[in-house]
């Protein structure tokens, strides 16, 4: 428990990992939603009837923030950080930190790019309302990689939990 890695305990490293995942995912989502919403707002200003069809495009980057949040909660639960009974060593905590990085970094980046893709796809709806289904596909493709990063982080955390015994 008192074993330190680069001056920080295992619990410190695990908390930083979970925190970074939640923070970066949230930052990415906030930026992505802002980017998409700016364009969507402009379209709705000129054509209010398209609001319903454009809302999913603006909301789509919000999922990355949720994925980061999920990763952070899993870290807290898997390694008993909530009960204050964690036995993670410094090195073990650092590996938990590393396991959080796929979802943290990929969610931030993919949310921003999903916002950009959503903004571009909103142009399709602006031109032809009936193509709103097609417009959803492009930002959804970006989502794939955020989901994969969450799966990787969850699998790594599960493996670490099995190895360290919580």
């Amino acid at each position, binding site marked *: 428990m008192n074993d330190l890695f680069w001056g920080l305990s295992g619990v410190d490293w695990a908390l930083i990992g979970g925190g970074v995942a939640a923070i970066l995912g949230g930052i990415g989502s906030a930026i992505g939603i802002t980017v998409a919403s*700016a364009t969507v707002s402009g379209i709705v*200003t*000129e054509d209010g009837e398209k609001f319903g069809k454009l809302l999913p495009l603006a909301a789509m980057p919000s999922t990355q923030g949720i994925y980061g949040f999920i990763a952070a909660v899993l870290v807290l639960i898997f390694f008993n950080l909530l009960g204050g009974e964690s036995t993670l060593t410094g090195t073990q905590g650092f590996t938990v930190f590393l396991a959080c990085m796929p979802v943290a970094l990929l969610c931030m980046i993919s949310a921003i790019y999903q916002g950009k893709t959503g903004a571009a796809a909103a142009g399709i709806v602006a031109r032809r309302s009936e193509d709103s289904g097609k417009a959803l596909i492009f930002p959804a493709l970006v989502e794939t990689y955020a989901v994969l990063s969450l799966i990787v982080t969850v699998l790594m955390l599960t493996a670490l939990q099995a190895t360290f015994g919580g």
Partner: protein
Amino acid sequence: MAGLTSTRDDIRYGFAVGRVRVLQARLLSRSVYERLIDAPDFAEQLRVLSETAFGRYLEHAATAEDVERALDASLGDLYGEFLLEAGLPEAVVRFFRLPYDYRNLRAALKTRVLGVASPELSSLGIAEPSAFSGSGEGLPEEMAAILTAWDEAEEQPQLAELESVVDHALFEALAGEAKRSRVAFLRDLMTLRIDLANIRVLIRANAKSLPPSAVRGALIDGGTKRLLELAAEPGRMDAEEFAEAIVATRAVVGLEARDLLDLDRYDLVAAALEAGRMASARMAPSGAEPVLAYVLAREAEVVALRTVLVGRLVGLDRETVRERLRGML
């Protein structure tokens, strides 16, 4: 860093880009122009336009002057409302309004120096039309200097000299605003426009075998330097050789030597190259480009509409109007 800038631009211009995506679809289509040309009279033209954004401006128009005023009002709203709300840098707004100031300057100079009756000055510029009278106190320094440049001159300048001085000043002012705007598209567009104007000067100089000093004076700074270096060459080469030399500078991609052998053909090719640059900007998914391309498209739309409406009002036949329009669309 580039990613950060791009994301900042996405947020900054996103709202305007969204509006443009809808407004672009409301630009007049080729079929509307065809209907306008084929309309039997002005009343029918107004009926066609009543279904468009121009309807409210042209509602009470009856003469060519009314049409001019109505179209200017539509542009005034574009600059006053859309551009200001678009969150574009101040320099971009100035970029679009400066040409009207220089148009006023040209008209005021013709009256002042050559005694030619001046048409009504436009109020679409930055400076008040009244500022172009007297010593130009309300004008920026460089404009006032041009306005009063011939006040003490013993010899009256030629019209071409006046035009050249105003054109040079306009290009310089626009290039300066484009640079200040920090919008890459505007900077590239100005470089292209200056290069195209300089190539035109070089072609004419070659045809007239002008001396290098005259060519240098006519060329505009701010474009591709390699073109300026050709100022000494026009008299030394024949037209084909000179066209090859211009193309070899690679200043303007897409130009071929045969495009430079005839000025009429060159003007069409130059207009097409500029239109191509606009089209690629319109297709940009985000940033300032689609917004600027839309404003430029609206300006072109007003010019085309003016050609059709005023052309028919003053009695031009359909084929002449159609021919003039062909170069614009």
